């Protein structure tokens, strides 16, 4: 019964979107973490999504893909440098390095992820109802 496959598909999307929400949370939490070197500063992490095909390669054309997280990459954005000589983490020139994270960008990313998550929850619950009704077919 092909309706069962939808749970796999929607489930893979839920897991991918929750990974995305996790990276957003991590980025937001570390947005103000100071560092005394440009290399040691926290870099924003972003997941890379890709379509996921299960099973043997020959069947791939007919198969409908779920989502997988290929990996999490660190953004190549330069750190924010501030001159705060009194800061305990300031280097010998009085500079402190902060992550180059835009909280506005991260918030927009979070809203998009949560909307996608809700979409897929809705899909799974609709399909569950349809399956239950199909099972009750012909019963009285």
């Amino acid at each position, binding site marked *: 019964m*092909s309706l069962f496959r939808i749970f796999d*598909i929607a489930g893979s999307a839920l897991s991918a979107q929750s990974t995305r929400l996790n990276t957003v949370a991590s980025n937001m939490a570390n947005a103000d973490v100071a560092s005394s070197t440009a290399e040691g500063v926290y870099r924003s992490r972003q997941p890379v999504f890709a379509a996921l095909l299960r099973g043997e390669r020959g069947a791939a054309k007919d198969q409908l893909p779920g989502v997988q997280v290929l990996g999490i990459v660190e953004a190549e954005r330069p750190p924010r440098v501030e001159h705060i000589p009194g800061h305990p983490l300031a280097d010998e020139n009085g500079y402190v390095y902060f992550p180059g994270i835009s909280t506005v960008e991260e918030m927009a990313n979070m809203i998009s992820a949560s909307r996608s998550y809700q979409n897929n929850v809705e899909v799974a619950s609709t399909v569950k109802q349809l399956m239950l009704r*199909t099972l009750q077919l012909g019963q009285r």
Partner: protein
Amino acid sequence: MSKLIDAAFGIHPKALALGARRLEVLAANMANADTPGYKARDIDFRSALREATGAAGGGRLERTHERHLAGRAAASEQLKYRVPNQPALDGNTVDAELEQTAFAEAAVRYQASLDFLASRIDGLRKALRGE
């Protein structure tokens, strides 16, 4: 006997199976709404159903000679790419709102097929009992 039951059920079992397949396609579209390079797909329900029921005008291969091999169009050939309204820069053509409404429509159609089948089963049962 089974022919009688087949005739009573008519088009609905096939519509149900196709509806399930379409729900799967739309769910895959929605799952990949944020996947770079993913192209949204859909089933042309009318022509797929026509083909499944063997009516003329479907994508079925006609045999003009009795020694020809019987051809059947594969299910993948019914999957068509959506014409994108506003494709994203990363090559993704999924329009989440469009997919949502299509999914809702497909779910309602699936339920309609279920209801038709239930009433047919009811009718058959009544006929068998002779009520």
